[in-house]
Structure formats: C-alpha cells, structure tokens
C-alpha cells in the first residue's frame, strides 16, 4: 500500500463506532434531504406563503448539510483527493448558506410571530361582528314584525277587530303564552278583562284600577315587567311545572274624541288607559329582551291611534245617521207644510170668490134698498145691515190681503203719482168723520217733499188711511196732526229700529210720516203686540171699537214691502200716541230703467233706420246689389262684402246687423267664425240669414250655428222694414217657414 501526502484518517480500530457513525450520517443525510422535499410539497399545496425565497435558502442549507454528511460517509475509509475536494467544497458552501440563513432568520422570525397575533385579533373581531350581526338581524326582524302588526291593526276600523288582531299578531310574533287586554269600565274605577288571546270569551274579571302595579304601569309609557302573581297576570290557571313565564304590561292610551288634539297627543289629553298584559310561555328559559319590549311599546301606541280612528269613524257614522233621520223628518215636515199652504191657498182662492160675491150682493142690494121709501125703523135696519156688511167686506179683504202678504206673493204696483195730492185726498176722506167726532185734523207737508214720486200709490194710501183711521178711532177729543217730510240720515237711525239702516241715494228717498193723536194712548208694554195680527189690546175702551186687529199688521207688511219701518210711541194710557213710519219712494226720471239704444216701438213700420250700419255678405253680385238697394232705401248705411274673409276683415262693433246669404258654401262657417271673433254678445252684429230654401233643415242649421234670424228670399221693402224693426227690438227673429 502506498502512503500519500494528504492527511488521511487512520482506519480506527473500533469498527463498531465507525459503523454507528456511518449509519447515523447516512440517516441524517436522508433526513436532511427529505425535509426540503416535504417543505416543498406542503408549501406547494398551500396557497399563501410569503417567504419562498427563505424556503429556498433553507432548503439549500439543509441539502448542503445533508450532502456534507453524505460525503463524509466516504471519508471514513480511504478516499481520493477528489472526494476530499468535494467534501471541502460542500462544507464551504454549507457554511455560506447556513450563515446566510441564520442572518435571514433574524429578520423572518419576528414577522412570523406577529402574524400569529394578528390572526388572533382578527378572529376576535370576526366573533364580535358575528354577534352584532345577530343583533341587527333580530332588530330587523322586530321592525318587520312591528310593521306587519301595524299594518294589520290599521287595516281595519272596527274596534273589536283592531284589538283582537293586535293580540293575535303580538302573540304570534313574540310567541306568547297569553296576551290580554284590560279596558276601563264606564265608571272608570275598575279594569275589566275584555280580550284575551287564548280564551274565546273571557268572563268578566275585573280588578280595581287603583292597584299599585297598575298605577306603576300607567305612570309611564314604557313596557314594564310585572310579577306573574299580580291580579292582572293571573288570568289562566297555572299549567306549567316550574316557573311561569315573565310578564310584561304596557299602557294603551284611550283617546277621548273631544280631546284629540294634534299637538299634545298623547301626553296630556288623556286620562284613560287600557292595560295590555303579555306573558311569555311558562317553563321556557326565555326572557324579555329589550327589543321585544320596544316592539310592545310601539304596538301599544299604534293600537291607541287605530282605536281613536275607529272611534272617530263610529262618531261620524252616528252623526250621519242622525242627520239622515233629521233630513227625513224635515222633508216630511216640509211636505206637510206645503200641503197645508196649498190647502190654505185653495181655501183662500175659494173664499175670495165665494165670499165676495154674496157680500157684494148684500152690500149692493142694501144700498139700493136704502134709496127706496122706507119707514124709519126699516131705514135703521137697512143701515145696520149695510154697516155690518161693509165691516164684513173689509174684514174679508183684510184677511185675504194679509195672507197674500205673508205668502210673499204680494208685489208692489209701482207707478208715478202725486204725493201731495195723496195726502190731500186722505185728509178729504177723513174730514167728515173727524168733524163728526169733533176732532181737529192738521196736515203738515215739508216744503222739500217731492211732488211726483214713484211707488205703490194704492197701498201707501191704505197705510196712511189705516194709521190715521186708528188715530181717529181711538181719540175721543183733541187734535190729530199728520206730518210728512223727507227723512234725513240722522233721523233714520232710530233706537227703536236698530237694524234699520236705510241709505238714501240719488234716485230714491225716505218719506217719514208721523201721526200724532191725543187719544187714549197705548200701554208701552203692549206696543209690540199691536203689530201682531188678530191681537187686540183688551182694555174696556177698545172692546167697543170695531176692527179685527188686522189693520196695523197689514200696514207693517206694506211698509216692509216698501223697505221701510213702522213703530208706535206712546207714553201710556190716556197720554195719546204717535205712529211713525218711514217708507222708501223713488224719484221718477232719475231711475235707471234701461232703454235699448234702438227705440223700441211696439208698432212695426218705422219710417227708416237712419244711420244703422249694416253689412251684407253675398257671393251673388245681383243679389248683393238688390239687398243693398233695399237697405239703402230704408236709410241704412250699407257695406257689401263678397267673401267670408272680406266679411271678417271688415266687420266691426259698429255694424249692428249682418245679412248673410246662406245658399253660398260655408255660409254657416262664417257664422261660427263671427261668433268666435266677437266674444261678447252685445258687441256682435246680429246675424240674419237670407235664404231661398224653405226647408226646416236650413232653419235648424241656422239656429244651430247661432244666427239671430232667418228670412226667406225674396224680401220686399215692407218685409225688410218690419224685419229690421223686429230684429232691433227683440234681437231675434225666426220667420215661420
């Protein structure tokens, strides 16, 4: 055996040790080679591993270590220089890599550790979010339930349905064992069990309202947990084994209709509450959660609102029924009244004729009889008959007049008359009677009293006569003075007539007449009764006087018709009295009776229509000329046009009449367009159609498009004249076809 220069380990004597080292090295190498393989395998499998480079380094390190150990296997025995070189190289490389790795790990390991803490942190966060999600979901569920409940509750306006639905839905949503509603009784001292969920018809349990637990619940608008043993909660026999479920109670405000104010609902305006009691199922470990309590509160509020709406509806239905009943009753009463009026009118109509005829006969014949030869007794008898029948006739007339006045069917006959003459005539009429009774009558007419006035002469005379006649009747002696003057505004306002505010103006004035007598006077307390019909003042003196008591009532009606006022002033019995009335009279000539601008003469055949502006529309030249000639002959100012457009162009407000030949095409269209052009009726010229057609269709068409007249051609001068007269007077003319 040659020895070489390189150092070579001596083959040790202990072969066993060598062998063990040999084997260990081999296994180490194996392990060293397999670890990177495993690493690669698993890293390839995992999706995320940020330190691949480190892995490579680590792998290289391990591989080299393994290689080193592997190569050292050869160094146990004699080995060549190559092996030694290889060994050296591998050892050097290993050293390099391992140092590099060691350096690298200094950076890596803290990172890796922190990853772990972050992971823990995130896990905690995730758990927290999960919890919160659960909460939100629960809340959302609750919200949904509330909405659904509200919808159910508010979908009906019937009280019972509302309450029943509430209980049912609450029971379902919250999975309750029992749900009950206690309503206050009429007296307000007790709560009565009105509705329950499970029991169909709750027997009327009542509890007094002043229990502390109830007060506690009523004092706040929150839902409160109450003891399951309180009287309101002990509705059904306890069926469970261990624990009754938790009970919650909430108040439900009952709004009284009249207290329903938008602004202070629900705090102030209500004093009445109902109690809603909700029980969880017994023997379950469930507890009332906050969100469930909130749900209950919300529902209670909604129920209150729904109940109030139902109450309002009930109220309005009741009112409507009441009104309907009243309507029916009123209708019936009205029909009865109408029947009564009709009956009275019929009666009066009959009376009018039937009674007046015999009266007339009696009066006429008695006065005739008076003229004949009679013995004094006979004369006396006839005079009595005459007097009585005159009285009766007056009575009939008065009654009939009054009823017509009350009907409102009486209308004043306005006419022009002489006021001064009227007074003088009154004076003449009563002078004889006055002189018989030795009463002195004076008449005073104010100088500014107009002579000619417009009013109802007959009725004014009647009124004055009546008043003066009364003065005569009730005076035994003294004088009677009649004064008449124009009432000025200050004197028009009278304390006795507070609602009477007449306003004189240019075309009317107020006549004030005062009749003063020194007769027996009137008790001031009786004054109002005087104007009531048939009422008589029951004094000794008057019982002898004639008169049905209608006179003043009629006077009052007449005066009212003349937009005036009448009243009596008297200081008492025996002190005489003054009757004053004010009536409205018009001044003739200044009244605003409108006269049409074209002299409306009842007779046809005006000589001419000077200056009347007329438009003639006709396509046919000859026809146009003839019509123009006609109208010119009658003195009109005629313009002729031969087409619709020209017509519309020329026509103006000044043209009063338009004659149009409708045989031409679109004749009717012209009328329509004219109507469009003149929107105000009085500005538009009267449109008259000239046609040779005698059929109804043409006439109807003319009327349909709004023409004011239709005339048949040919038109003679006289016909045209009368047509124009008629037209201007009546503004319409449709000749009989």
């Amino acid at each position, binding site marked *: 055996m040659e020895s070489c220069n390189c150092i070579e380990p001596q083959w040790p004597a202990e072969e066993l040790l060598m062998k063990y080292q040999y084997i260990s090295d081999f296994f180490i190498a194996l392990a060293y080679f397999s670890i990177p393989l495993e690493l690669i395998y698993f890293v390839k499998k995992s999706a995320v591993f940020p330190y691949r480079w480190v892995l490579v380094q680590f792998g290289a390190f391990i591989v080299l270590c393994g290689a080193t150990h592997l190569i050292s296997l050869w160094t146990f025995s004699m080995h060549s220089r190559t092996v030694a070189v290889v060994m050296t190289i591998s050892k050097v490389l290993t050293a390099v890599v391992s140092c590099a790795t060691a350096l690298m790990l200094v950076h890596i390991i803290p990172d890796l550790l922190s990853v772990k803490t972050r992971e823990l942190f995130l896990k905690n966060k995730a758990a927290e979010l999960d919890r919160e999600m659960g909460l939100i979901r629960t809340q959302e569920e609750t919200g949904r339930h509330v909405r659904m409940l509200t919808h159910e509750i508010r979908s009906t306006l019937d009280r019972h349905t509302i309450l029943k639905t509430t209980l049912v839905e609450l029971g379902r949503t919250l999975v309750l064992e029992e749900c009950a509603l206690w309503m206050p009784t009429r007296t307000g001292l007790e709560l009565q069990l009105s509705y329950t969920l499970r029991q169909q018809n709750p027997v009327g349990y009542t509890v007094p309202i002043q229990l502390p637990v109830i007060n506690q619940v009523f004092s706040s608008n929150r839902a409160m947990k109450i003891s399951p043993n309180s009287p309101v909660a002990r509705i059904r026999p306890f069926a469970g084994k261990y624990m009754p479920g938790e009970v919650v109670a909430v108040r439900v405000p009952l709004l009284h209709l009249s207290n329903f104010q938008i602004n202070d609902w629900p705090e102030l305006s209500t004093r009445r509450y109902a109690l809603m009691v909700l029980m969880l199922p017994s023997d379950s470990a469930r507890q009332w959660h906050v969100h469930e309590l909130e749900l209950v509160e919300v529902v209670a509020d909604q129920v209150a609102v729904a109940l109030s709406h139902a109450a309002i509806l009930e109220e309005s239905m009741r009112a409507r029924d009441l009104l309907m009943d009243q309507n029916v009753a009123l209708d019936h009463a009205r029909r009865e009244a109408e029947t009564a009026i009709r009956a009275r009118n019929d009666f009066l109509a009959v009376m009018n004729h039937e009674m007046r005829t015999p009266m007339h006969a009696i009066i006429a014949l008695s006065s005739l009889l008076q003229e004949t030869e009679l013995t004094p007794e006979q004369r006396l008898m006839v005079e009595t008959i005459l007097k009585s029948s005159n009285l009766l006739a007056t009575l009939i007339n008065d009654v009939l007049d009054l009823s017509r006045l009350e009907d409102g069917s009486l209308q004043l006959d306005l006419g022009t008359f002489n006021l001064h003459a009227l007074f003088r005539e009154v004076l003449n009429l009563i002078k004889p009677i006055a002189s018989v009774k030795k009463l002195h009558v004076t008449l005073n007419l104010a100088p500014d009293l107009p002579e000619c006035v417009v009013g109802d002469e007959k009725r004014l005379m009647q009124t004055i006569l009546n008043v003066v006649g009364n003065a005569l009747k009730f005076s035994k002696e003294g004088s009677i003075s009649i004064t008449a003057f124009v009432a000025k505004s200050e004197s028009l306002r009278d304390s006795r007539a507070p609602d009477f505010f007449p306003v004189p103006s240019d075309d009317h004035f107020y006549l004030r007449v005062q009749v003063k007598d020194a007769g027996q006077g009137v008790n001031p307390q009786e004054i109002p009764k005087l104007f009531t019909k048939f009422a008589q003042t029951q004094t000794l003196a008057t019982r002898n006087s004639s008169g049905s008591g209608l006179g003043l009532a009629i006077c009052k009606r007449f005066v009212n018709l003349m937009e005036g006022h009448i009243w009596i002033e008297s200081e008492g019995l025996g002190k005489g009295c003054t009757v004053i009335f004010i009536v409205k009279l018009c001044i003739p000539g200044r009244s605003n009776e409108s006269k049409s601008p074209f002299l409306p003469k009842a007779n046809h055949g005006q000589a001419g229509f000077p200056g009347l502006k007329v438009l003639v529309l006709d*396509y*046919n*030249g*000859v*026809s146009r*000329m*003839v*019509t123009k*000639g*006609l109208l*010119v*002959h009658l003195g009109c100012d005629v313009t002729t046009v031969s087409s619709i457009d020209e017509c519309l162009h020329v026509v103006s407000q000044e043209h009063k009449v338009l004659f149009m*030949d409708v*045989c031409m095409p679109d004749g009717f269209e012209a009328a329509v367009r004219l109507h469009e052009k003149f929107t105000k009726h009085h500005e538009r010229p009267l449109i008259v159609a000239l046609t*040779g057609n005698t059929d109804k269709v043409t006439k109807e068409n003319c009327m349909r498009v709004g023409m004011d007249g239709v005339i048949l*051609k*040919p*038109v*003679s*001068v006289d016909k045209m004249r009368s047509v124009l007269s008629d037209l201007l007077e009546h503004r319409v003319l449709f000749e009989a076809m």
Partner: protein
Amino acid sequence: MEVVQMQRAWVEYTKSLFREGFLDAQFQQLQLLQDESNPDFVAEVVSLFFEDSERLLSDLTFALEQQSVDFKKVDAHVHQLKGSSSSIGAQRVKNDCIAFRSFCEEQNIEGCQRCLQQVKQDYCLVKSKLEALIRLEQQIVAAGGSIPMEELSC
C-alpha cells in the same frame, strides 16, 4: 212722343211683362227701390244681371261640353244663376234654373243640355225685353217725365 204717351206705353209694357211671366213681383220691389237718391238703381242691377248671366251661361256651356262633366260645378253655376234671376225677378229664367238643378242632381247630361238651351232662350228673351224697358224709361226721363210706378199697382 209725348211724355204721357210714353209713360202709358211703359206701364202697358211692364204689365205685359208681368202677365207673360217674364218678370215677377221681385222686379216690382226693385222698381220701388229706385228713387231720387238712387235714380239708376234698376238699370244698374239689370246690367249687372246681364253680365253675371252671360258669364255663367258660357261657363255652363263649357262645363257641359267636357268629356266627364263635373256636375258639382255645373250645379254651382246654376245655383248662382238662379240666385241672380230670382233677385231680379226674372221668373222664367229662375224656373228654368230650378228644373236644371234637378237634372244636375240626377246627373242627366241630356236633360242638362236641354235645360241649358231653355235657359239661354228665356234669358235672351228677358234680356231683350228688359233692354227695351230700360230704353223706354230713359226716354221718359230724358223727356222730362217721371216713371209712373204707382200705376203698376192698379
């Protein structure tokens, strides 16, 4: 000729025209419209009538000579002629127009042609008569007289 004679002739002539149906009461109305303020009214209307009618008649002739006759147009012309003649009181022409229109509605070409001839004939007649009348009136006026309308009513 003397005025009085002329006037008498005029009256006779007018009455004959009415009798023979050439003119009707409408013409009388026209005559009534003639006064001092409007001395030539009748003459003007009559000449206008002549112009209108001649135009219408030539239009009608033309329309009826067409291959396909437009009856609507023909009817429109006849309607115009009828209007004119009735306004002036040319009775025969008017009646002919009425007959003409019914043929137009039936769209009877031969009938229309016949009517057209009739209308033309009557028109010529009434034209010559009216022209004669107007000439007479002018002569009377030229001689210093006035037209005796009143005498027509007897």
